[in-house]
């Protein structure tokens, strides 16, 4: 009988990424409701690092601490995690819908032959103690409640949406070391190089605050206005598709249906009309602020706060005022 809510943590250079705490917390909340236990799986980091997850609700932790898998490799990660999951037989497996989480979960679900609900924003237990997930589809124009079948049911949670529980440092977990032990064939793909992003830019999908500019920016030379606001707020800078297609900003800055999906605490949209495809990328934002001189712009339907104003006048004032606030 499949039992237990498990999670797969994510590490980078041997340290836990924030999404690890999100999936551990999600697993713990569900397990408490279902009256069962939580175990976590961590590949590529040490037992000491894994043990940090005890404070976030893990009762048991499986750790694969091997140099060969320090960096993410789809096949070895899939195979070793599948092995651990088959032996432990949990009822559910929670992963992050981070870049790594999404394709790892997909390959893993196929290997295990189970259903996978991807990039969900909410989870709940139904009367049969099965987990139902709510996820956006058609770029968030509608949402689907889905029920993955199989043991375990698999899920990936949208980053920055599931809250992290208050850690309890007094909690301890049983930490089990698992040997890698895979066929050499599993390593047909190797990491040749890692090109670190040295620009100091804050990653959009992980930013707490994003300031984004669209067609209303009128040209690449004007983005310094929002970059200054972003600097004061410690925010990342995004762009709409119009700005990217016009060549004003790189497509790695694009937020939207064919760009990045972000879920910051605050999203400030400057000169962005709010087309459905853009909303698809930022509708999970907790607070949406819009600055646009067109009172009819659709963005105002979704914004929590809006000002109908010329961004070239408004944004520098906002920068000045936020500077004062931050100094308090």
């Amino acid at each position, binding site marked *: 009988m499949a039992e237990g809510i498990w999670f797969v943590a994510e590490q980078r250079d041997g340290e836990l990424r924030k999404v690890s705490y999100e999936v551990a917390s999600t697993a713990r909340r569900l397990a408490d409701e279902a009256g069962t236990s939580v175990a976590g799986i961590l590949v590529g980091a040490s037992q000491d690092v894994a043990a940090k997850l005890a404070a976030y609700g893990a009762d048991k932790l499986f750790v694969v601490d091997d140099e060969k898998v320090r960096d993410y490799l*789809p096949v070895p990660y899939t195979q070793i995690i599948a092995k651990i999951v088959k032996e432990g037989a949990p009822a559910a497996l929670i992963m992050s819908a981070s*870049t790594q989480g999404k*394709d790892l979960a*997909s*390959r893993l*679900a*196929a*290997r295990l*032959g189970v*259903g*996978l*609900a*991807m*990039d969900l924003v909410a989870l709940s237990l139904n009367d049969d103690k099965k987990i*139902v997930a709510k996820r*956006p*589809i*058609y*770029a*968030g*124009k*509608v*949402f*689907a*409640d*889905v*029920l*993955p*079948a199989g043991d375990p049911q698999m899920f990936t949670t949208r980053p920055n949406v599931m809250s992290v529980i208050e850690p309890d440092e007094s909690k301890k977990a049983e930490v089990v070391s698992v040997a890698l032990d895979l066929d050499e064939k599993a390593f*047909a*793909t*190797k*990491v040749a190089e890692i*090109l*670190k*992003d040295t620009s100091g830019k804050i*990653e959009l999908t*992980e930013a707490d605050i994003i300031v984004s500019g669209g067609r209303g920016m009128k040209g690449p030379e004007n983005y310094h206005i929002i970059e200054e606001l972003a600097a004061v707020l410690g925010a990342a800078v995004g762009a709409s598709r119009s700005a990217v297609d016009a060549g004003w900003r790189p*497509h*790695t800055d*694009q937020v939207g249906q*064919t760009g990045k999906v972000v879920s910051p605490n*605050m999203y400030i949209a400057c000169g962005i009309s709010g087309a*459905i*495809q853009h909303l698809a990328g930022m509708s999970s934002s*907790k607070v*949406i602020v819009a600055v646009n001189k067109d*009172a009819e712009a659709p963005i*105002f339907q979704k914004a*929590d*706060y*809006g*000002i109908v104003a010329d961004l070239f*006048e*408004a*944004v520098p*004032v906002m920068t000045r*005022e*936020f500077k004062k*606030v931050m100094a308090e």
Partner: protein
Amino acid sequence: MEIVACIKQVPDTETQIKVAGDGKSIDSGDIKWIMNPYCEFGVEESLRFKEKFGGTVTVVSLGPARVVESLRTALAMGADKAIHIETATTELDALTTAQLIAAALKDVSPNVIFCGQRAVDNDQAQVGAALAEVLDIPHVALVNKAVVSEDQSTIRVERPVEGQTMVYESTLPILLTTQKGLNEPRYASLPGIMKAKKKPMDKKDPAALGVEMGSRLEVLAITPPPQRAAGKIVPGETVEEMAVELVRLIHEEAKVV
């Protein structure tokens, strides 16, 4: 080189999505169908590989009769042959889709398979990795650069992740999922469109492919997006006033900063 591009036909992103009467599917009347934008990058990259190394480009798609149009578009772009797996719907679960494609490709020994990183209708991003697992070949997702070695024995790909770019090197065969930035897909030319009509369109009956139809992801309900509480337009006589008040609200009311 044997190259395969898997494509999905999806509703145009401008389409108004309406929930069907049963409350758990989409009303498919009035939809303009297009090739999934991410799949286009796969077709284009396939054609570039063929231009460089010679060989054949096969495109595959699963779905009802209407998907033939997207397959013809790929043929018009320059693909050599198409395989249409005739299923009633494009919304089979990811593993079933992968198994059907794998079975349909039984007589093709691809060196490289391209899949769009996700479909813009169900936004699942699952089929590519699932297909690689079913075929027991390596995969790298979200590549924006792919270079095959001159002797065609290895491939070097780049995949941007949070804060860095991973560069992987792999033996072939391999499956890659494609994202924006990989290339600029070409438009089908008029001669291309004419030639496409004569290119092979192989029909596959799913029953004959020996794949059990799974239902690993049940849709219980489709609902409109969660309503956000109504927002406020910040008042003010001047832009200065509005902006000052806006910051005050964000700080004191929303307490974000």
